[in-house]
């Protein structure tokens, strides 16, 4: 079941919201349990065969979490705690590795050996990367004494909670469990319904009205046969289109998740903060898929040593983190290249900052510095997106060749017409000139911002009639597009 479907909006959501608040009048634990059951049903709607896998993963991690916590509290040696932690994480990685990477490794081995092995396809359970990472974080937090509450119903709800189950945001135990324990979330609140409903509609609008319209335009280039000679205009238009499609699709999904959760009074962490306005790659990764960046920083980069062992080691750690981050997105060399490219960007960015290049250029360019840096960053991100979207490296290189202008700039028979390209300009304007959903609603703090200072802009949400009319019109437009159900791009990860 997708958030952008009649079944979800018209049937599932009203029933679950009503059920939760009815149950809450009887018993808070019952309400939380009903929400957990509804979340598992939401997952089972996609493929009921994977429900035992999800529940098994939840039970496994819960038991390991309790064991780690008990050992730590009972004064067991750090080695014992680490052993429990290692076993738990290994179990998670085996599960993820089997479903997501086994065939990739087998295929790569076959390619190296020149063998023609018959590799049986393995269906990737929906959201496995997200619920596995969420639980790895839980185990690590438990071993460090950061996770305090071990209520099984709340834990199950924390992992399976339907707004984030399929495509994130990746949650921290410590930011969710206290919320489940708050009595006020079990009371229906018109404020929460208004705020949650508004963000949900904004997300739906981004997905249906902005992202989906770009899909077929982008596919014309990215799905073209290998060896196609693209001219610069069509190659850049396709990459620009994909950059916009992915942003509106994934940030739209994240907004919907935040909005849905807010209906229940529960705040999820913000996942996007206008990443294309970033003036360098470091800033970009602080604003793009923020909960994944946080996870990679806390559970990979810092344990690898972070910046504690000199510049060389720091750059190596960055490269390893980003390459693995790329691999997390999918079992394919294109993702590894994409991640590594971002690793290189980050290394270059840190090196540049170390040399003080930014300060010199900002003095030279004055007020033009920020827009120039922003454009340059966006261009670099777009180049990397080529590998992220292309079906294989060969296709990606075809497109990159086209982007250099080696095959010419314009042609009379382009895969993407000039009109399609011009139609992307308003979307770029939205990305660069308008406040994002969280800045727009900063006054009512719709999500967990993790210390991020979101500046309220002039265009600010308030529960007024004009605002209700504007959001209502957006909601109505979305309804007319609901029949064209398309999955979210990040579901595949």
């Amino acid at each position: 079941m997708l958030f952008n479907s009649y079944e979800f909006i018209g049937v599932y959501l009203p029933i679950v919201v009503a059920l939760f608040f009815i149950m809450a009048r009887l018993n808070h634990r019952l309400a939380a349990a009903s929400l957990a059951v509804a979340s598992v049903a939401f997952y089972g709607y996609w493929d009921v065969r994977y429900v035992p896998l999800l529940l098994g993963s939840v039970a496994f991690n819960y038991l390991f979490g309790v064991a780690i916590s008990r050992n730590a509290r009972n004064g067991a040696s750090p080695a014992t705690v680490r052993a429990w932690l290692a076993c738990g994480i290994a179990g998670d990685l085996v599960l993820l590795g089997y479903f997501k990477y086994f065939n990739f490794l087998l295929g790569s081995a076959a390619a190296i050996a020149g063998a023609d092995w018959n590799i049986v396809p393995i269906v990737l359970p929906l959201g496995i990367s997200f619920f596995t990472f969420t639980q790895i974080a839980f185990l690590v937090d438990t071993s460090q004494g950061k996770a305090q509450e071990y209520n099984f119903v709340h834990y199950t709800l924390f992992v399976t909670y339907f707004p984030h189950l399929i495509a994130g945001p990746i949650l921290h135990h410590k930011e969710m469990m206290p919320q489940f324990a708050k009595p006020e979330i079990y009371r229906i609140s018109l404020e929460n319904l208004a705020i949650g409903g508004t963000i949900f509609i904004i997300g739906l609008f981004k997905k249906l009205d902005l992202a989906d319209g770009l899909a077929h335009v982008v596919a014309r280039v990215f799905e073209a046969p290998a060896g196609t000679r693209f001219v610069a205009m069509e190659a850049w238009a396709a990459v620009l289109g994909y950059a916009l499609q992915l942003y509106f699709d994934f940030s739209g999904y994240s907004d919907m998740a935040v909005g849905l959760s807010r209906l229940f009074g529960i705040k999820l962490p913000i996942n996007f903060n206008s990443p294309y306005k970033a003036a360098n790659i470091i800033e970009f990764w602080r604003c793009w898929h923020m909960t994944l960046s946080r996870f990679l920083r806390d559970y990979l980069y810092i344990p690898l040593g972070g910046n504690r062992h000199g510049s060389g080691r720091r750059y190596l750690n960055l490269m390893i983190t980003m390459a693995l981050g790329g691999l997390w997105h999918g079992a394919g060399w294109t993702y590894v290249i994409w991640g590594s490219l971002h690793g290189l960007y980050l290394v270059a960015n840190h090196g540049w900052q170390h040399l003080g290049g930014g300060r010199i250029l900002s003095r030279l360019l004055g007020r033009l510095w920020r827009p120039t840096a922003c454009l340059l960053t966006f261009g670099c991100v777009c180049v990397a997106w080529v590998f992220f979207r292309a079906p294989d490296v060969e296709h990606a290189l075809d497109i990159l060749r086209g982007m250099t202008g080696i095959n010419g700039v314009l042609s009379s028979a382009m895969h993407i017409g000039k009109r399609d390209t011009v139609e992307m300009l308003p979307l770029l304007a939205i990305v660069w000139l308008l406040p994002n959903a969280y800045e727009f609603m900063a006054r009512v703090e719709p999500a967990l911002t993790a210390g991020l200072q979101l500046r309220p802009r002039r265009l600010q949400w308030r529960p007024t009639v004009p605002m209700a009319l504007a959001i209502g019109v957006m909601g109505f437009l979305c309804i007319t597009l609901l029949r064209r159900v398309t999955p979210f791009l990040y579901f595949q990860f």
Partner: protein
Amino acid sequence: MSYSRYLSVLGLTILIPALAIVAINYRIGAIGWANPEIAATAVRWQRETHGIVNIAVPQERNFKFLSLADREPGVKGVILGASTVQSLRGADLGLHGVYNFAISSNDTAAVVTEAEYLADAMPQLEWMVASLDWVLGYVYRDEPPSVPDKVEQTSTISTAAQLEDTLTLPRVVGLRARLVEWVQSGAPVQAAVQALTSPLSGPYRCTDGVPGEGFAASDPTPCAGFRWDGTMSFEGQQPITETGHRLVLARSLQQNGEYVQSIRSHRGMPNEEYLRDLTQVAATLRARGGRMIVLLPPLLPGLERELLSSTDTAEYAGLTKRVIHRWAADHDITLIDAGASEDFGCQFSDFFDGHHNFGGCYDKIFTKLGDCRAPAWLLPPLERKDEHGKNCSR
């Protein structure tokens, strides 16, 4: 402002227009495209005028069945298939008494069912043209042909399906166009009442003097619709330009393109049940002294060659053609393989997309076949040679 007021305004802003659109579109659908009576009305009108009927797509099947029943005693042959053969005329084949029964999006399962039903229901029927649209994937599908029972002329569309359809983007956009029309008419209320009480567009004359009328038309382009012989006029469609030709060829080879996905769907293997059932119908027609002709419809010049050489499709497209050719040869069925339309002199301007031609291409195909023209070539066609000594079947 209170949150309750905000939520009320927000909810009403979504619900009021949505419900209004559902109501109006449901009404328009109920009296129009979902109304089984509309086909009978169109048939009666065409009987009187011999004009062009522009009818809603969901009513095409009803219309064609009723029209065929209306002309039945004089009909000796039918053309079965999808919109790709809707421009093929009996005159192209050199025959009289031909009705073009092709229906939009008719897959091969439906064609087989219709062939069996019509062969059984019309004892005077001597020959058929059955189109096999392989590039659209119709020949590969898994659905078995329906039991050719007494196919009732009227099919109905469920209320749930009608309601679901009311809020789709095309219907909402269509309603907006209607509202503009009503306002521009000068008497908007009268125009709206007329539209909500009658699905007819009102009669008009086409440039060649033939009358036309819209019957809850999906595409209101005047003079686009079915002629008396069942062929489609394709009025309003634009011929492909030279640039468009290159673009269509390039896009048709994309991995996510319609043709590539269709051909790859079943690894190029046609559903053998379809071919087996068509063989039986062919035998029935042969026993009557008639003939089954299988047509692989013409494609945009160059398209078939591209599909037969592209790494994504070559293997499967080649297999499809080999299987169909072998089947036709084994069962003495006349096969006209017009896929490489450029071999018959067709040009890109004869087409308005990759697989639809205005009819000019069919004219060229059968002119090229020259001496093979019906009726003589149909009986028996395979032994006949044209002036260059070529077989009539390719």
